[in-house]
């Protein structure tokens, strides 16, 4: 094993793979609608984490910086150095809106489950 960071990054990504499997197992096999709801939120969070992991990068220096300039740049070379050390901002921008929109949609889903329970007096699907 050459680099410990390779191993550690592999642990993070493979954990996300395992979480995808476990949460899909919950969505498919658990009978309760509330449990399906909880598993579905974990599933969507895991997929968002994959997008964030795609945007990560390695740099030659100590550690990559966030996609935020810490001060107003004085000359164009500072901008080039920033672009050479910051992580990819595009997946972050996409996931940012997806999390908030997802929360609103899950609230709608929670209302539907409440209606289901009001009609059938249970939350069992099968």
């Amino acid at each position, binding site marked *: 094993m050459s680099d*410990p*960071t390779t191993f*550690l*990054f592999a*642990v*993070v990504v493979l*954990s*996300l793979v*395992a*979480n995808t499997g*476990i*949460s899909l*197992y*919950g969505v498919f096999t*658990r*009978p*309760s609608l*509330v*449990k399906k*709801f*909880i*598993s579905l*939120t*974990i599933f969507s*969070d895991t997929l*968002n*984490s994959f997008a*964030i*992991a795609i*945007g*990560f990068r*390695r*740099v030659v220096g*100590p*550690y*990559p*910086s*966030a*996609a*935020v300039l810490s001060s107003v740049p004085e000359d164009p070379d500072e901008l080039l150095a920033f672009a050479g050390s*910051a*992580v990819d901002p595009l997946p*972050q921008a996409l*996931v*940012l809106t997806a*999390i*908030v929109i997802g*929360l609103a949609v*899950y*609230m709608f889903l*929670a209302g539907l*489950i*409440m209606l289901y*329970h009001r009609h059938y007096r*249970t*939350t*069992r699907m099968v």
Partner: protein
Amino acid sequence: MEVVPISIAAIAALLSIVATYLAVRSRDLLAAVVFSAVQSTAYALIYYVLMAPDIALVYIPVSVGILPAVTVMLVKKTERYEE
């Protein structure tokens, strides 16, 4: 590249597997909500280490704050134990 921050992310990722499994398997739905919140906290740590502070800032109030509150309200209005 420094080893310490990314090893924190790896530990948080392993913790999130345990929390996810217990959340999916637990028969007490209230306990499942708590385990799901633990999983969300681990994910917030991962986002911070992967240099996404914007996502961490939006993820902590949404998935550790509001979503467990909504799910607890859902459990309270329906039923607590899964059959």
